[in-house]
Protein backbone atom coordinates (compact mmCIF):
# COMPACT_ATOMS: atom_id res chain seq x y z
CA UNK A 1 0.00 0.00 0.00
CA UNK A 2 1.27 3.44 -0.94
CA UNK A 3 -0.17 6.52 0.76
CA UNK A 4 -2.29 8.71 -1.52
CA UNK A 5 -1.05 12.19 -2.39
CA UNK A 6 -4.37 13.84 -3.34
CA UNK A 7 -6.22 15.93 -0.79
CA UNK A 8 -8.58 14.19 1.61
CA UNK A 9 -12.34 14.16 1.01
CA UNK A 10 -13.46 17.75 1.13
CA UNK A 11 -16.97 19.12 1.65
CA UNK A 12 -16.30 21.96 -0.79
CA UNK A 13 -15.48 19.56 -3.61
CA UNK A 14 -17.09 16.36 -2.47
CA UNK A 15 -17.45 14.56 -5.79
CA UNK A 16 -14.18 15.81 -7.28
CA UNK A 17 -12.08 14.97 -4.24
CA UNK A 18 -13.57 11.48 -4.01
CA UNK A 19 -13.07 10.78 -7.72
CA UNK A 20 -9.47 12.04 -7.63
CA UNK A 21 -8.69 9.76 -4.71
CA UNK A 22 -10.29 6.76 -6.40
CA UNK A 23 -8.43 7.56 -9.63
CA UNK A 24 -5.11 7.73 -7.81
CA UNK A 25 -5.83 4.61 -5.78
CA UNK A 26 -6.97 2.42 -8.69
CA UNK A 27 -4.31 3.63 -11.12
CA UNK A 28 -1.66 2.30 -8.72
CA UNK A 29 -2.89 -1.19 -9.51
CA UNK A 30 -4.46 -1.24 -12.98
CA UNK A 31 -1.28 -0.46 -14.92
CA UNK A 32 -0.62 -3.89 -16.40
CA UNK A 33 2.04 -4.73 -13.80
CA UNK A 34 2.39 -6.91 -10.72
CA UNK A 35 1.63 -5.56 -7.26
CA UNK A 36 1.66 -6.87 -3.73
CA UNK A 37 -1.85 -7.20 -2.41
CA UNK A 38 -1.83 -7.28 1.37
CA UNK A 39 0.12 -10.40 2.24
CA UNK A 40 -0.02 -11.75 -1.31
CA UNK A 41 3.03 -10.78 -3.33
CA UNK A 42 3.15 -9.96 -7.03
CA UNK A 43 -0.47 -10.20 -8.14
CA UNK A 44 -0.85 -9.51 -11.87
CA UNK A 45 -3.23 -6.67 -12.75
CA UNK A 46 -4.40 -5.76 -16.26
CA UNK A 47 -4.02 -2.24 -17.62
CA UNK A 48 -7.35 -0.42 -17.55
CA UNK A 49 -8.76 2.88 -18.67
CA UNK A 50 -10.33 4.51 -15.59
CA UNK A 51 -13.46 6.55 -16.16
CA UNK A 52 -15.82 8.38 -13.88
CA UNK A 53 -19.56 9.14 -14.01
CA UNK A 54 -20.61 10.04 -17.57
CA UNK A 55 -17.18 10.01 -19.23
CA UNK A 56 -17.39 8.65 -22.76
CA UNK A 57 -15.54 5.41 -23.31
CA UNK A 58 -13.15 5.44 -26.27
CA UNK A 59 -14.26 2.98 -28.92
CA UNK A 60 -12.84 0.46 -29.36
CA UNK A 61 -11.39 0.32 -25.88
CA UNK A 62 -7.71 1.13 -25.98
CA UNK A 63 -5.54 -1.85 -25.20
CA UNK A 64 -1.80 -2.25 -25.32
CA UNK A 65 -1.95 -3.84 -28.77
CA UNK A 66 -4.60 -1.46 -30.07
CA UNK A 67 -6.96 -4.40 -30.45
CA UNK A 68 -9.32 -3.76 -27.57
CA UNK A 69 -8.83 -3.39 -23.87
CA UNK A 70 -10.35 -2.90 -20.47
CA UNK A 71 -12.26 0.04 -19.04
CA UNK A 72 -13.56 0.57 -15.52
CA UNK A 73 -16.23 3.23 -15.07
CA UNK A 74 -17.12 4.38 -11.57
CA UNK A 75 -20.67 5.70 -11.26
CA UNK A 76 -22.21 6.95 -8.04
CA UNK A 77 -25.44 5.14 -7.30
CA UNK A 78 -28.78 6.72 -6.45
CA UNK A 79 -30.51 6.22 -3.16
CA UNK A 80 -30.82 7.70 0.26
CA UNK A 81 -27.41 8.97 1.46
CA UNK A 82 -27.58 8.53 5.20
CA UNK A 83 -25.61 11.24 7.02
CA UNK A 84 -24.62 11.78 10.60
CA UNK A 85 -22.19 14.03 12.41
CA UNK A 86 -19.89 13.75 15.40
CA UNK A 87 -17.50 16.07 17.21
CA UNK A 88 -13.98 14.67 17.19
CA UNK A 89 -10.48 15.69 18.07
CA UNK A 90 -8.58 16.61 14.91
CA UNK A 91 -4.98 17.74 15.33
CA UNK A 92 -5.66 18.67 18.92
CA UNK A 93 -8.76 20.72 18.12
CA UNK A 94 -12.46 19.86 18.32
CA UNK A 95 -13.99 19.59 14.87
CA UNK A 96 -17.39 18.48 13.69
CA UNK A 97 -17.05 15.58 11.28
CA UNK A 98 -19.70 14.46 8.80
CA UNK A 99 -20.12 10.80 7.90
CA UNK A 100 -22.05 9.98 4.77
CA UNK A 101 -22.98 6.53 3.49
CA UNK A 102 -22.58 6.28 -0.29
CA UNK A 103 -22.73 3.56 -2.94
CA UNK A 104 -20.89 3.21 -6.22
CA UNK A 105 -21.15 0.91 -9.18
CA UNK A 106 -18.01 -0.07 -11.09
CA UNK A 107 -18.84 -1.06 -14.67
CA UNK A 108 -15.98 -3.23 -15.89
CA UNK A 109 -15.95 -3.87 -19.61
CA UNK A 110 -13.57 -5.33 -22.13
CA UNK A 111 -13.47 -6.02 -25.83
CA UNK A 112 -11.06 -7.39 -28.38
CA UNK A 113 -8.99 -10.54 -28.07
CA UNK A 114 -9.44 -12.47 -24.80
CA UNK A 115 -12.06 -9.97 -23.69
CA UNK A 116 -13.72 -12.44 -21.33
CA UNK A 117 -10.48 -13.26 -19.54
CA UNK A 118 -9.56 -9.58 -19.46
CA UNK A 119 -12.90 -8.53 -18.00
CA UNK A 120 -12.77 -11.36 -15.48
CA UNK A 121 -9.25 -10.50 -14.31
CA UNK A 122 -10.21 -6.80 -14.19
CA UNK A 123 -13.31 -7.34 -12.06
CA UNK A 124 -11.57 -9.93 -9.88
CA UNK A 125 -8.65 -7.58 -9.35
CA UNK A 126 -11.02 -4.74 -8.47
CA UNK A 127 -12.87 -6.91 -5.98
CA UNK A 128 -9.58 -8.11 -4.52
CA UNK A 129 -8.17 -4.62 -4.06
CA UNK A 130 -11.33 -3.09 -2.64
CA UNK A 131 -11.93 -5.93 -0.18
CA UNK A 132 -8.35 -5.94 1.07
CA UNK A 133 -8.20 -3.84 4.24
CA UNK A 134 -4.43 -3.52 4.10
CA UNK A 135 -4.72 -1.87 0.67
CA UNK A 136 -7.82 0.26 1.29
CA UNK A 137 -6.30 1.73 4.43
CA UNK A 138 -4.81 4.41 2.16
CA UNK A 139 -8.35 5.41 1.13
CA UNK A 140 -9.55 5.34 4.73
CA UNK A 141 -6.77 7.75 5.73
CA UNK A 142 -8.15 10.21 3.16
CA UNK A 143 -11.79 9.88 4.22
CA UNK A 144 -13.15 6.97 2.16
CA UNK A 145 -13.71 4.29 4.75
CA UNK A 146 -15.83 1.26 5.69
CA UNK A 147 -15.73 -0.20 2.20
CA UNK A 148 -18.13 -3.04 1.56
CA UNK A 149 -17.65 -4.56 -1.86
CA UNK A 150 -19.92 -7.07 -3.57
CA UNK A 151 -18.58 -9.85 -5.77
CA UNK A 152 -18.55 -9.19 -9.55
CA UNK A 153 -21.71 -9.95 -11.48
CA UNK A 154 -21.66 -10.99 -15.11
CA UNK A 155 -23.93 -8.78 -17.19
CA UNK A 156 -23.04 -9.54 -20.81
CA UNK A 157 -20.54 -11.71 -22.61
CA UNK A 158 -20.78 -10.86 -26.31
CA UNK A 159 -18.88 -8.25 -28.32
CA UNK A 160 -18.39 -6.22 -25.17
CA UNK A 161 -17.98 -8.20 -21.99
CA UNK A 162 -19.53 -6.37 -19.09
CA UNK A 163 -19.40 -6.97 -15.35
CA UNK A 164 -20.66 -5.01 -12.38
CA UNK A 165 -18.88 -4.61 -9.05
CA UNK A 166 -20.84 -2.60 -6.50
CA UNK A 167 -19.35 -0.93 -3.49
CA UNK A 168 -20.76 0.69 -0.37
CA UNK A 169 -18.59 3.16 1.56
CA UNK A 170 -18.71 5.85 4.20
CA UNK A 171 -17.23 9.25 3.45
CA UNK A 172 -15.70 11.11 6.36
CA UNK A 173 -15.03 14.81 6.03
CA UNK A 174 -14.89 17.87 8.29
CA UNK A 175 -17.81 20.28 8.25
CA UNK A 176 -16.04 23.44 7.18
CA UNK A 177 -18.73 25.88 8.33
CA UNK A 178 -17.93 24.95 11.90
CA UNK A 179 -15.22 26.84 13.68
CA UNK A 180 -13.04 24.37 15.56
CA UNK A 181 -13.92 24.63 19.25
Amino acid at each position, binding site marked *: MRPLTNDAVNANALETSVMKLMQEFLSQYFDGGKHDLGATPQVQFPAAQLLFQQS*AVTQPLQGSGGSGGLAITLVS*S*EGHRRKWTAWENVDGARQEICYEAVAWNFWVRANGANSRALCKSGSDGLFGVLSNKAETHALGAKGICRLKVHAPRVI*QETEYVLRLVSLGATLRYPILSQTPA
Partner: protein
Amino acid sequence: MINFFRMTITSNIQGVLDRAIRRPRDVRTALMRTLMAGDWDKLLRAEAKKALWANAKQAEWSFVDVFINTVLTGPFVTGFFARMSNPIPPILYLEDFAMARGLQTRALNEGSGPTLWSGFVNQFDQMVVDWVANEKKKDARDWEKSDEEIGRWIGYLMLTPDSKLNAKPSGRINPVTGQPDLSELEAKHHLMKHIVNYIQRRQTANRLASDRINEWLLAVLAAWSVLVRREFPGRFREQLKIVRTEL
Protein backbone atom coordinates in the same frame (compact mmCIF):
# COMPACT_ATOMS: atom_id res chain seq x y z
CA MET B 1 -34.77 8.44 60.65
CA ILE B 2 -36.75 6.59 58.10
CA ASN B 3 -40.36 6.22 59.08
CA PHE B 4 -41.75 4.72 56.09
CA PHE B 5 -40.51 2.93 53.05
CA ARG B 6 -42.46 1.48 50.28
CA MET B 7 -41.37 -0.19 47.12
CA THR B 8 -43.80 -0.85 44.32
CA ILE B 9 -43.15 -3.25 41.58
CA THR B 10 -45.43 -3.10 38.59
CA SER B 11 -45.42 -4.80 35.30
CA ASN B 12 -45.76 -3.38 31.81
CA ILE B 13 -46.71 -6.78 30.56
CA GLN B 14 -49.93 -5.43 29.13
CA GLY B 15 -47.95 -2.89 27.11
CA VAL B 16 -45.58 -5.62 25.95
CA LEU B 17 -48.52 -7.81 24.96
CA ASP B 18 -50.21 -4.92 23.18
CA ARG B 19 -47.01 -4.20 21.35
CA ALA B 20 -46.57 -7.86 20.45
CA ILE B 21 -50.10 -7.88 19.05
CA ARG B 22 -49.45 -4.65 17.17
CA ARG B 23 -46.11 -5.81 15.84
CA PRO B 24 -47.31 -7.89 12.86
CA ARG B 25 -49.70 -5.10 11.92
CA ASP B 26 -46.94 -2.49 12.18
CA VAL B 27 -44.63 -4.60 10.05
CA ARG B 28 -47.33 -5.06 7.44
CA THR B 29 -48.10 -1.33 7.35
CA ALA B 30 -44.42 -0.40 7.18
CA LEU B 31 -43.85 -2.93 4.40
CA MET B 32 -46.74 -1.59 2.38
CA ARG B 33 -45.49 1.96 2.75
CA THR B 34 -41.92 0.93 1.86
CA LEU B 35 -43.13 -0.74 -1.30
CA MET B 36 -45.17 2.18 -2.60
CA ALA B 37 -44.28 2.34 -6.30
CA GLY B 38 -44.31 6.15 -6.38
CA ASP B 39 -41.34 6.43 -4.04
CA TRP B 40 -39.25 4.05 -6.09
CA ASP B 41 -40.14 5.36 -9.54
CA LYS B 42 -37.92 8.45 -9.41
CA LEU B 43 -35.08 6.52 -7.83
CA LEU B 44 -35.13 3.69 -10.37
CA ARG B 45 -35.31 6.09 -13.33
CA ALA B 46 -32.31 8.03 -12.04
CA GLU B 47 -30.34 4.84 -11.44
CA ALA B 48 -31.21 3.53 -14.91
CA LYS B 49 -30.05 6.78 -16.46
CA LYS B 50 -26.71 6.58 -14.66
CA ALA B 51 -26.21 2.96 -15.69
CA LEU B 52 -26.97 3.77 -19.33
CA TRP B 53 -24.78 6.88 -19.41
CA ALA B 54 -21.92 4.81 -18.04
CA ASN B 55 -22.36 2.21 -20.75
CA ALA B 56 -23.26 4.32 -23.77
CA LYS B 57 -20.78 5.18 -26.48
CA GLN B 58 -20.84 8.82 -27.48
CA ALA B 59 -22.73 8.00 -30.67
CA GLU B 60 -25.39 6.25 -28.56
CA TRP B 61 -26.11 9.05 -26.10
CA SER B 62 -29.28 10.04 -27.93
CA PHE B 63 -30.77 6.63 -27.12
CA VAL B 64 -30.45 7.00 -23.36
CA ASP B 65 -33.59 9.10 -22.88
CA VAL B 66 -35.49 6.92 -25.35
CA PHE B 67 -34.77 3.93 -23.11
CA ILE B 68 -35.56 5.86 -19.91
CA ASN B 69 -38.95 6.81 -21.35
CA THR B 70 -39.89 3.13 -21.46
CA VAL B 71 -39.49 2.70 -17.70
CA LEU B 72 -42.79 1.73 -16.20
CA THR B 73 -43.51 1.26 -12.51
CA GLY B 74 -46.72 0.41 -10.73
CA PRO B 75 -48.31 -1.55 -7.89
CA PHE B 76 -48.12 -5.32 -8.11
CA VAL B 77 -50.04 -7.47 -5.60
CA THR B 78 -48.52 -6.33 -2.29
CA GLY B 79 -45.52 -4.59 -3.78
CA PHE B 80 -44.57 -2.89 -7.00
CA PHE B 81 -43.04 -3.71 -10.33
CA ALA B 82 -40.56 -1.82 -12.48
CA ARG B 83 -39.97 -2.52 -16.12
CA MET B 84 -37.74 -1.21 -18.87
CA SER B 85 -38.34 -2.36 -22.43
CA ASN B 86 -36.65 -2.19 -25.80
CA PRO B 87 -37.86 0.98 -27.52
CA ILE B 88 -36.31 0.16 -30.89
CA PRO B 89 -38.94 -1.17 -33.33
CA PRO B 90 -38.05 -4.35 -35.26
CA ILE B 91 -36.78 -4.04 -38.85
CA LEU B 92 -39.57 -4.76 -41.33
CA TYR B 93 -38.99 -6.08 -44.83
CA LEU B 94 -41.03 -5.52 -47.97
CA GLU B 95 -42.73 -8.89 -47.45
CA ASP B 96 -43.87 -7.82 -43.97
CA PHE B 97 -45.39 -4.63 -45.36
CA ALA B 98 -47.04 -6.57 -48.20
CA MET B 99 -48.55 -9.00 -45.71
CA ALA B 100 -49.77 -6.09 -43.58
CA ARG B 101 -51.38 -4.47 -46.63
CA GLY B 102 -53.07 -7.78 -47.58
CA LEU B 103 -54.42 -8.33 -44.08
CA GLN B 104 -55.61 -4.76 -43.83
CA THR B 105 -57.36 -4.93 -47.21
CA ARG B 106 -59.08 -8.15 -46.21
CA ALA B 107 -60.20 -6.65 -42.90
CA LEU B 108 -61.52 -3.53 -44.63
CA ASN B 109 -63.40 -5.67 -47.17
CA GLU B 110 -65.02 -7.48 -44.25
CA GLY B 111 -66.26 -4.15 -42.88
CA SER B 112 -63.62 -3.52 -40.24
CA GLY B 113 -62.40 -0.02 -39.37
CA PRO B 114 -58.69 0.77 -38.98
CA THR B 115 -56.80 -2.37 -38.01
CA LEU B 116 -53.57 -3.17 -36.22
CA TRP B 117 -51.94 -3.33 -39.65
CA SER B 118 -52.82 0.24 -40.58
CA GLY B 119 -49.79 1.58 -38.71
CA PHE B 120 -47.38 -0.62 -40.67
CA VAL B 121 -49.00 0.29 -43.99
CA ASN B 122 -48.92 4.00 -43.15
CA GLN B 123 -45.26 3.67 -42.12
CA PHE B 124 -44.45 2.09 -45.48
CA ASP B 125 -46.42 4.70 -47.44
CA GLN B 126 -44.61 7.48 -45.60
CA MET B 127 -41.21 5.92 -46.36
CA VAL B 128 -42.08 5.69 -50.07
CA VAL B 129 -43.23 9.33 -50.07
CA ASP B 130 -39.95 10.26 -48.39
CA TRP B 131 -38.02 8.36 -51.04
CA VAL B 132 -39.91 10.21 -53.78
CA ALA B 133 -39.21 13.53 -52.07
CA ASN B 134 -35.53 12.87 -51.35
CA GLU B 135 -34.09 10.41 -53.82
CA LYS B 136 -36.33 9.86 -56.85
CA LYS B 137 -34.93 11.22 -60.08
CA LYS B 138 -37.94 13.22 -61.22
CA ASP B 139 -38.62 14.12 -64.83
CA ALA B 140 -41.31 15.91 -66.81
CA ARG B 141 -43.81 13.11 -66.05
CA ASP B 142 -43.68 13.94 -62.34
CA TRP B 143 -44.05 17.70 -62.58
CA GLU B 144 -47.82 17.82 -62.33
CA LYS B 145 -48.05 15.39 -59.42
CA SER B 146 -47.33 15.87 -55.74
CA ASP B 147 -44.83 13.64 -53.93
CA GLU B 148 -47.77 12.09 -52.05
CA GLU B 149 -49.54 11.15 -55.29
CA ILE B 150 -46.41 9.60 -56.78
CA GLY B 151 -45.60 7.87 -53.49
CA ARG B 152 -49.14 6.46 -53.17
CA TRP B 153 -48.92 5.03 -56.70
CA ILE B 154 -45.49 3.46 -56.11
CA GLY B 155 -46.61 2.13 -52.72
CA TYR B 156 -49.60 0.50 -54.38
CA LEU B 157 -47.33 -1.12 -56.98
CA MET B 158 -44.88 -2.39 -54.38
CA LEU B 159 -47.42 -4.05 -52.08
CA THR B 160 -49.75 -5.48 -54.73
CA PRO B 161 -49.14 -9.10 -55.79
CA ASP B 162 -47.69 -9.48 -59.31
CA SER B 163 -50.74 -11.43 -60.43
CA LYS B 164 -53.00 -8.42 -59.79
CA LEU B 165 -50.87 -5.94 -61.72
CA ASN B 166 -51.22 -5.22 -65.41
CA ALA B 167 -48.37 -6.91 -67.27
CA LYS B 168 -49.22 -5.30 -70.64
CA PRO B 169 -47.72 -1.94 -71.53
CA SER B 170 -50.25 0.81 -72.34
CA GLY B 171 -48.58 1.41 -75.70
CA ARG B 172 -48.09 5.11 -75.02
CA ILE B 173 -44.74 6.65 -75.82
CA ASN B 174 -42.98 8.36 -72.96
CA PRO B 175 -42.44 12.00 -74.05
CA VAL B 176 -39.26 12.24 -71.96
CA THR B 177 -37.46 9.04 -72.90
CA GLY B 178 -39.10 8.48 -76.28
CA GLN B 179 -39.53 4.85 -75.23
CA PRO B 180 -42.85 2.98 -74.70
CA ASP B 181 -44.27 3.36 -71.14
CA LEU B 182 -43.55 0.48 -68.79
CA SER B 183 -46.39 -1.77 -67.68
CA GLU B 184 -47.41 -1.77 -63.98
CA LEU B 185 -45.49 -5.01 -63.44
CA GLU B 186 -42.36 -3.73 -65.22
CA ALA B 187 -42.53 -0.45 -63.28
CA LYS B 188 -42.79 -2.41 -60.01
CA HIS B 189 -39.74 -4.52 -60.77
CA HIS B 190 -37.83 -1.48 -62.01
CA LEU B 191 -38.52 0.50 -58.81
CA MET B 192 -38.31 -2.33 -56.30
CA LYS B 193 -34.53 -2.34 -55.85
CA HIS B 194 -34.59 1.38 -55.04
CA ILE B 195 -37.46 1.07 -52.57
CA VAL B 196 -36.05 -2.03 -50.83
CA ASN B 197 -32.68 -0.35 -50.52
CA TYR B 198 -34.25 2.85 -49.14
CA ILE B 199 -36.51 1.23 -46.52
CA GLN B 200 -33.61 -0.92 -45.27
CA ARG B 201 -31.36 2.12 -44.97
CA ARG B 202 -34.10 4.12 -43.27
CA GLN B 203 -34.79 1.45 -40.69
CA THR B 204 -31.20 0.51 -39.94
CA ALA B 205 -29.74 4.02 -39.82
CA ASN B 206 -29.18 5.45 -36.36
CA ARG B 207 -30.04 2.20 -34.66
CA LEU B 208 -28.67 0.19 -31.76
CA ALA B 209 -27.46 -3.35 -32.38
CA SER B 210 -29.39 -6.16 -30.65
CA ASP B 211 -26.36 -6.97 -28.50
CA ARG B 212 -26.20 -3.42 -27.24
CA ILE B 213 -29.91 -3.38 -26.48
CA ASN B 214 -29.55 -6.60 -24.47
CA GLU B 215 -26.50 -5.22 -22.72
CA TRP B 216 -28.29 -2.03 -21.73
CA LEU B 217 -31.37 -3.81 -20.46
CA LEU B 218 -29.29 -6.30 -18.46
CA ALA B 219 -27.09 -3.53 -17.07
CA VAL B 220 -30.09 -1.58 -15.82
CA LEU B 221 -31.63 -4.73 -14.34
CA ALA B 222 -28.38 -5.43 -12.44
CA ALA B 223 -28.13 -1.82 -11.23
CA TRP B 224 -31.76 -1.91 -10.06
CA SER B 225 -31.23 -5.19 -8.29
CA VAL B 226 -28.24 -3.83 -6.36
CA LEU B 227 -30.10 -0.60 -5.58
CA VAL B 228 -33.27 -2.25 -4.26
CA ARG B 229 -31.31 -4.72 -2.11
CA ARG B 230 -29.32 -1.87 -0.63
CA GLU B 231 -32.18 0.61 -0.19
CA PHE B 232 -34.94 -1.64 1.04
CA PRO B 233 -33.71 -2.43 4.60
CA GLY B 234 -33.05 1.22 5.45
CA ARG B 235 -36.36 2.40 4.05
CA PHE B 236 -38.23 -0.36 5.86
CA ARG B 237 -36.60 0.48 9.18
CA GLU B 238 -37.46 4.13 8.65
CA GLN B 239 -41.11 3.37 7.92
CA LEU B 240 -41.33 1.01 10.90
CA LYS B 241 -40.04 3.76 13.15
CA ILE B 242 -42.65 6.16 11.79
CA VAL B 243 -45.46 3.63 12.22
CA ARG B 244 -44.47 2.96 15.82
CA THR B 245 -44.46 6.63 16.71
CA GLU B 246 -47.92 7.16 15.24
CA LEU B 247 -50.79 7.17 17.65
